[in-house]
């Protein structure tokens, strides 16, 4: 299929990129400004051509693998736009790699708290997926640190929501809505993030009973139970950390690190109310995962299998949903035919559909990624 000349014109103006195999069947564009991105989306909308958004491409399977008429990359927008260091905020283009961002911030004693397990992932991709790093127990989710967002919408306009301020109730909270929206409302071109100062020290302690540590400790950074062992991450001065470790009868060993990214072909994220984590863990154990990482007090278990039967996944999902949670298939490499990535669609589908339609009237922005095929 040849793209219409109106679309090709907008794409050339925005900077064509070589096509990426397996992502887009046609041309790929890497705009360098939000306006260019909006112009391509406006042209694509007029021709009903789907546009797939991509950062580093590590999460193309989330919401199910798709192909699109046009690929739009954030690689042309990887700059630091503004970093008023003392305000503990930073504005970056969506294409910046999280590892690069963290290294830069750490040098000034700051952190974005974004997940850095895959340092080449982009900030835009992490925000679009709404993923949080290990410090969520102490510092809350990524969503609470996206202060401002600039979005090229499905109707071809550049819109900005929120502000470059750590406290703000001026208008509807577009940044939080866009976080985790998987590109369904538009292409994120830049974000302002709230930063935190790095603590004097962060230590990881091996513990026997993660659930007991969760009850005993006051606001630890993370409490993780995994196939490799159970760990608590504590922040503070060296003295504070050693007192806290002693209070749960544990030793500090600076050689330990928190579990790394799960690389098994099937990756499922089980999300339950934190009070139901123990019950959900039993459900996951029953299905013998090759690897798992559970975050106490947060309610997320990520589990990987080299293979697992479709029936097992459906059964797990049913039981997790009855706990008030969800079992999301983040990756299946074709091993789970017919399994919906999300499970039961949320009860607010009619409002979600209207939002999608109002921000993406032609349905061209990452179509099909959200639950219910939105």
């Amino acid at each position, binding site marked *: 299929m040849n793209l219409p000349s109106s679309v090709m014109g907008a794409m050339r103006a925005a900077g064509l990129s070589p096509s990426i195999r397996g992502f887009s069947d046609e041309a790929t564009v890497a705009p360098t400004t939000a306006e260019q991105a909006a112009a391509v989306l406006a042209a694509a909308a007029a021709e009903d051509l789907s546009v797939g958004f991509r950062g580093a491409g590590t999460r193309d399977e989330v919401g199910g693998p798709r192909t699109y008429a046009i690929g739009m990359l954030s690689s042309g927008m990887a700059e630091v736009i503004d970093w008023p260091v003392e305000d503990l905020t930073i504005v970056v283009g969506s294409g910046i790699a999280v590892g690069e961002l963290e290294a830069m911030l750490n040098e000034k004693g700051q952190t974005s708290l974004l997940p850095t397990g895959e340092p080449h992932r982009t900030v835009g991709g992490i925000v679009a997926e709404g*993923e949080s790093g290990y410090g969520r127990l102490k510092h809350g989710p990524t969503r609470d640190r996206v202060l401002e967002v600039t979005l090229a919408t499905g*109707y071809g306009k550049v819109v900005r929501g929120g502000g470059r*301020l750590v406290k703000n109730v001026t208008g509807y909270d577009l940044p*939080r809505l866009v976080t985790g929206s998987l590109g*369904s409302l538009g292409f994120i071109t830049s974000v302002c993030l709230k930063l935190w100062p790095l603590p004097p020290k962060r230590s990881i302690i091996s513990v026997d009973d993660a659930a007991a540590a969760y009850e005993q400790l006051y606001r630890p950074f993370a409490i993780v139970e995994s196939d490799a062992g159970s760990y608590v991450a504590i922040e503070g001065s060296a003295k504070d950390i050693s007192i*806290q470790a002693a209070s749960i009868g544990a030793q500090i060993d600076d050689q330990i690190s928190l579990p790394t990214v799960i690389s098994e072909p099937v990756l499922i994220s089980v999300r339950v109310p934190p009070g139901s984590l123990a019950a959900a863990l039993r459900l996951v154990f029953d299905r013998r995962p090759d690897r798992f990482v559970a975050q106490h007090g947060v309610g997320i278990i990520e589990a990987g299998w080299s293979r697992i039967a479709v029936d097992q996944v459906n059964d797990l999902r049913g039981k997790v949903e009855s*706990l008030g949670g969800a079992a999301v298939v983040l990756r299946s490499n074709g091993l789970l035919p017919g399994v919906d990535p999300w499970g039961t669609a949320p009860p607010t589908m009619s409002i979600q559909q209207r939002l999608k339609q109002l*921000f993406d009237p032609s349905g061209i922005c990452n179509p099909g990624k959200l639950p219910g095929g939105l």
Partner: protein
Amino acid sequence: MSLISELVALLGEERVRHHPLDLAVFAKDSGVTSGPVVAAVLPETAAEVASCVNLAVAHGVPIVPRGAGTGLAGGAVPVEPGLLIVLTRMGGIHEVDEIGRTAWVGPGLINLDLSTSLASRGLHFAPDPSSQQASTIGGNVGTNAGGPHCLADGTTIAHILAAELVTADGDIVIVGSGAPDLPGLDLRSVVVGSEGTLGIVTRVLVRLMQNPPDAATLLIGFRTIEDAAATVSQIIASGTIPAALEMMDRPMIEAVEAFVHAGYPTDVAAVLLAEVTGTGQSVADATALVESIAEAHNAALIRVATDSDERALLWKGRKSAFGAVSQKAPDYYLHDTVVPRTRLVEVLAQIYEIGERHGVEMLNVFHAGDGNLHPLVAFDANEPGMIERVRAAADEMVRVSIKAGGTLSGEHGIGIEKRDLMPLVFNEADLDAQARIRDAFDPQRIMNPGKVLPSGSRCFDASGARLP
């Protein structure tokens, strides 16, 4: 049948208020605006709320939800003759999950009552607006309320996991969830802070925080505002985010001392109230750090309180600030702008200059740690021309805050008060996008119309794209 007689048939006479005296009571909140009320109803269940919504929609009467009426921006004040749905009778604590540290509560529950009733379980609800003895959780959700302790813990949105919402269609739905990152768009994100324009919240799943094992409060006096502000910036840059960092200027200190004798020094330009919480050692570490930074910035006085009575005394001055102002003048107008923390000093200087030029008395008490300014003008509304001067000064203060990279509101909301100032912060396309959010929930615009967004915010319907 008239709307009122249908409401009476639904709820009974006692829960439908429409006598002139009632209408006058419900015509305003704690701010300066008032509006026309058709009736005020007091439902007790979500189903009753939904029935009230359906009746109002059938009669074409707009709906305005209301909690305790402590709002300052006019969010609960009808713009056109409206039905007030008052949620104060839905104030229960329904379910507490101690392991998950969450609770389902009614929107009419008073903020402070939630933390008080959870104290024995070692948990609390973090948002602590100054109105917390009166304001409701539903109202806090509506405005995304803040308070001194939001510096470290975030405003109300960070503490609301889910909400039951009665929509403009009369449906009862849950937005958000007790589980993290549930699939789909996070509608909770926009419902919190929507000031009742997206629906009526009838039940809330709140996140509860552990009570800190230890705490210290520091009162620090400075000879210049610059030193106080520089201390704030350095404390935060040092790697410790205190639980609260509040500042008061000299006029406010004098008013407070005259009112409650909290023992604040009256010979300084500003006092900083810093609170650090955590484990015993972390509190000791943070206290030492704050003291050393304050000393390096020429602190004139440092008092540290570690037991709860002493800490309460240091907080007493801060918490009495608004009461103290009412001893000075019969009326006050309280602002709520935010600026980047590093611009505090320069914006404060401009605010003093504006007050002087308009001949109005200015006092400042604010959340310095997150740049949330609360310039307060004390005045007598009976003085001829005074209201006009107060409003003119207010308008200028908002503009200088925005010019310094700030915004209209940090915790009070937009309501009616700041609605028409929204174009100072957002352009046409930005406001249009926000109007789309509202239209997704309430296409008929029956839910608290005339709030948050200026009229005409939807400016280009589907431009450049075809509607399916």
